[in-house]
Every structure is written in C-alpha cells, then in structure tokens.
C-alpha cells in the first residue's frame, strides 16, 4: 500500500513541476503555432543557472529563481527577435528544423562551457531533508517546496493571462493576429513577449528541478518530449489544461512504481521480472500517440 501512495504522491509532485515546464511551450505554441524543439534546452539553461549561482554564492537554490526568470526572459526575447521572427515566414519544416538547430547550438555551447559530466546540488536549506507523513509516505522537502513554487508560478502566469490587459492582448493576438493589429495591439511585441514569458517559466522550472535532478548538457530532449506530451494532452494553447495534463503525465512517469505495487501486492511473478524502470520514458511517447489519436484537441484545447 505504501508503494502505491508513495508513487501517487511523488507522481503528483513531479507533475506540478512538469506542468510548469510545459507552460512556456503552450503559451508559445498557442500564440504562434510554432513548435519549439529548443524548449528542453531552455530548461537546461535554467538548471545550470540555478545550480551555478547557488554554488557560487552559497545561497539556497530556491532563492535563485528570480535570476533564472530574468535570464529566461532575456533569452526568449533574444531568440524571438534574432531568429524565430524569420522562421515564421517559412514553411513548417523550416520551423521544426530551425528550432532543432537552435537546440543543437544551445546544447553544445553548454557542453563546451560546462563539460559533459553530471552535476548535482549537494547543499541547500532543504536538500536531503524529508518528512514522514505517516502510512509510509516520505516526501522529500525539496520536492514539496518545488511543487508549491511551481503552483505559485503557474497561478502567476494564469493571472497574467486572464486578469490583466496584457494577457488579453496576448490572447487576442493568438485568436486573430490580423484583427488584433487592427485594434491597435502591437502583435510583433506581443509575440516577443510571449517568447519572453514562455522561456522565463521554463527556466524557473529548470532552476526548481535542479534541486532534485542532476544536470548535464543532454537533459533537454527528454524534457522537450515530456513538454510536448503535456501540451498535447492539455490542449495546445490552454493554461489550465497544461496544469492538469502535467499532473497526469507525472503519474504516467510513475508507472514503474505502480507496476511494482501490483507485482508485489498480488504476487504476480512475471510482472516482477519486467525491467519496467527502463521503459520509464516510453510511456510518455505512447501517451502522446494515443492522446493525439483519441482526442487531438486535448483536454482543454480551444484551437484545432
């Protein structure tokens, strides 16, 4: 029983962070129909930012979030103004491959700067601490704090998108760019802003994830695929959709835990022999495929 509850709990906590990872992608995609392959690389930059500033200054890694957000915002605007703007004029394949090129560049610059070895945070206020809430569930303090911060950031973005004039302008640009321009909305600036906000959220998520996940220059791709799945499930362009989908994908990533639970509880021999942890990421890809076939709009999607 405790395996089940433990898996459920850690799946949900992870899901909240994954939702934050995918949020940036859904904003960018919803606004301008472009798939960003470099999304995971932005996350990696966020992870390095959190990790290196924490190590250099001795601050707690959780305090590096504003810096990560700032770097992400600048990076996003730079990418849009210097590169993505030109991609939008081309066909779809150019967008896919162009952002893939961006991903290669960012990844290998990180490789040149930081080397290929895994780095992990070893010090911090919460690192390594955990508390037992009974029934055998142990929650590590970092994961809980990270999940809470993720939810807070999420709420912030939701408020920005739904309760401010800026958010309205962004939504209007997404719905009808031509119409928005007639209403006097500077759509070009809105696009740049969406890239800024999108990559700021993902670098924040990266700085959070760095608390419990070791970082190397190659972490990006897995997270890119996770983010694609979350966004597909939640509906391309939907902010609350991304949140719930994040939770679901977090649970999908805990499938090995559930598998063990069934194998042990019902004492099914063959189940225990399947190396389920090796298939951890496969379920995400399978989930993407199935979601796209069954419900291409996603759970909360408003854009076909």
């Amino acid at each position: 029983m405790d395996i089940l509850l433990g898996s459920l709990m850690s799946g949900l906590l992870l899901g909240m962070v994954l939702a934050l990872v995918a949020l940036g992608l859904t904003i960018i995609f919803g606004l301008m129909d472009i798939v960003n392959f470099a999304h995971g690389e932005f996350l990696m930059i966020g992870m390095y930012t959190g990790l290196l500033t924490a190590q250099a200054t001795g601050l707690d890694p959780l305090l590096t979030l504003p810096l990560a957000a700032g770097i992400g915002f600048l990076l996003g605007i730079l990418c849009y103004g210097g590169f993505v703007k030109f991609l939008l004029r081309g066909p779809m394949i150019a967008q896919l491959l162009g952002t893939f090129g961006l991903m290669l560049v960012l990844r290998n610059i990180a490789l040149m700067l930081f080397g290929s070895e895994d780095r992990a945070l070893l010090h911090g206020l919460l690192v390594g601490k955990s508390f037992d809430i009974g029934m055998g569930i142990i929650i590590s303090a970092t994961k809980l704090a990270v999940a809470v911060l993720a939810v807070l950031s999420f709420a912030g973005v939701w408020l920005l998108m739904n309760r401010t004039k800026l958010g309205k302008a962004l939504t209007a640009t997404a719905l009808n760019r031509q119409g928005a321009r007639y209403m006097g909305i500077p759509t070009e600036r809105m696009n740049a802003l969406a890239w800024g906000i999108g990559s700021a959220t993902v670098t924040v998520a990266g700085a959070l994830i760095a608390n419990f996940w070791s970082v190397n220059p190659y972490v990006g791709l897995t997270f890119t695929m996770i983010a694609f799945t979350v966004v597909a499930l939640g509906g391309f362009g939907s902010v609350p959709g991304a949140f719930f989908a994040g939770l679901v994908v977090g649970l999908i990533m805990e499938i090995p835990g559930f598998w063990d639970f069934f194998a042990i509880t019902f004492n099914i021999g063959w189940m225990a022999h399947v190396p389920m942890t090796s298939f951890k990421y496969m379920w995400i890809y399978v989930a993407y495929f199935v979601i796209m076939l069954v419900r291409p709009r996603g759970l909360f999607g408003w854009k076909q």
Partner: protein
Amino acid sequence: MEAIRNAVDFSDFPWSDRMLALAVFCLLLIFPLFPYSAFAMATMIQFFIFSLYGMGWNTIGGYGGQVDLGKAQYVGIGAYTTMVCLLRWDIPFWVSMPIGACLAMAWSFIIGYPLFKLKGHYFAIATIATSLVLKDIFEVWKFVGAARGLGILPYKYQSPDFLRLIFKEDLYYYYVIFAFFVIGLLYMNWFRKSRLGYQLRSIKDNEDMARSLGINVHWAKIKTYAIATAFVSVVGSFHAVYIKNIEPEDTMSLDISILIALMAMLGGAGSLWGPIIGAGILIPLKNYLKEWLGAAAGLLGIDLVIYGVIIMLISAFEPRGIWGIVEKVRRRKRI
C-alpha cells in the same frame, strides 16, 4: 518497359543540368582511381548512404509535404534485421535485406494507418514519438543486444565476401552503395512521374482539393510512407554490414531522423536532385568540421555549434533549399 523508359528519361531537365549530372556521375565512378585517404572514402560512402536516406524521405516529406521526423526507426529495423540474421543464423545480406525491408514496411503500415490521421506539427511530433518508443524497446531487448548493440567480428569471414557483403577494403563498399545509389536515383526519377507522385504533389498543394478529385488521400500517404520506409530500411541494412557495429543510440536516435530531413530540405525538398545536393554539402561539412575542430583542436562540441548555426541560417533565410535558389534564378532569367 514503359516504367524503365520513364526511369532513365531525364529529358525534362535542361541540357546543362543533364551534362552536369553526367559529369558528376563519371567523377563518382572513377573517384577511387584518384589518390584518396581512408577518411575521404568513408565520407563518400556516408554521402551515398545519406543521400539515399534523403531520397526516401523526399517521397513522403518532399513530394507529399508530410514532415516525417521518425525515419531513424526504419534505419534501425533494417540494420538490426540484417545483423541478427547474420549473427544468429548466418543468413546472407541479399536475403536478410529484403526481409528487413518487409518487416520495416509491415511496421510502417501498422503505425502509418493511425499516424496519417494527424496533420502538421502533430504528425511530426508523433513520428518522433514512435521512433523513440522503438529505440527504448531496442535498448532493453536482450535478443538484439540491448543498449550495447551487436557487432560483427570481421576476421571470422573471408574478406571479399560478396554474399554477406563483408569486405576489408572500403573500395568494395563504395561500388556496392554506388550501385544502390544509381538504382535509387532511377527509381526516384520514375516515382516523380508516376501516378502516385502526381497524387502526392496535389495532396501537398491542397489536401481537400485532392480529395475532391477522387484521390484516396489517406491511402496514398500510407503507400508513400511504405516506399520511403523501404528505401531507408534497405540502406539501413547496408549501414549495418558497413559499420559492423550497431547500437540503438547511433542507428535510431533523433539526430539521424533530423539529419535525414535536413539533408533533403537543404538541397530542396520535393526535387529530384535536392537530397543529393544536400547530402553532398552537409556530410563532408559535418565530417570535416568534426575532424578539424572537434578532434584536432580539442574543442568538444564546436563542430555541432557551427553545424547548428548553419541549420538555423538555412531554415530562417532559405527554407526552400539550394534547388529553390536555382529555380528562382532561372525563373527570373526567363522573365
């Protein structure tokens, strides 16, 4: 007969193009006569391999306009079939290659049917997803050597082994893949003038219009996908006996899929010469950048940075590729 005549008929290209192509063909034919390094030879073989991959991709991605970023899974199926057949049952290459192609095509039909219900970005990401699923399975599957992969021990075989296609000298491989290349080129030349080729182009231009003209859009796409798959899988089989050591990470990774699509796009997707031009530029560039900057100068990753910048520049400023530039110049001249 009709088909063969169509395949060798290049008369719709201008005279200058045909002469240039013939000159390049002759140069490629006598390339091994010149003094060359082993590295140059390996690069040339890789050029042929990737231009064939690119031609396969070009059927569905170029003529059909369906951006497929999961071709690496079929490289893997072809390569692994040949490898497993050779190592376990000593089945020669010429038998295992068609088996691999059949397996790959069967798999392409199975996943192609649901896959082509999706469009645009959704389709592209779904192809990546299927490819990564297959890679994950191969990485834990003991029968095919799991993550460590499989390898041929070349000293077990007599060197010029034409049945199993195991040679000590790259020269033999060069001519074998060159023959494949010529056959592939002729096939593509036939394909672009075939009924399916025209159907695909109309699907690319306007899918609804194509459907209203009575084209079975879904089926046409699936068929083309299978053709593309067969191309890639056959070359994947060759790749296995040529490299002699395959593992999921370097036969089925996303980078391979992207490289295949990129090559066709750089040269010009949807044109006969596009993938060849693309491979002819990218493969030497990639190899020599790695040789000069990566290995020699000790800067890990700088070759890929430059390579990535080139990808970014092409896709931002010339998404129709080199053949697109050529056609633009020609059109301007005519007017």
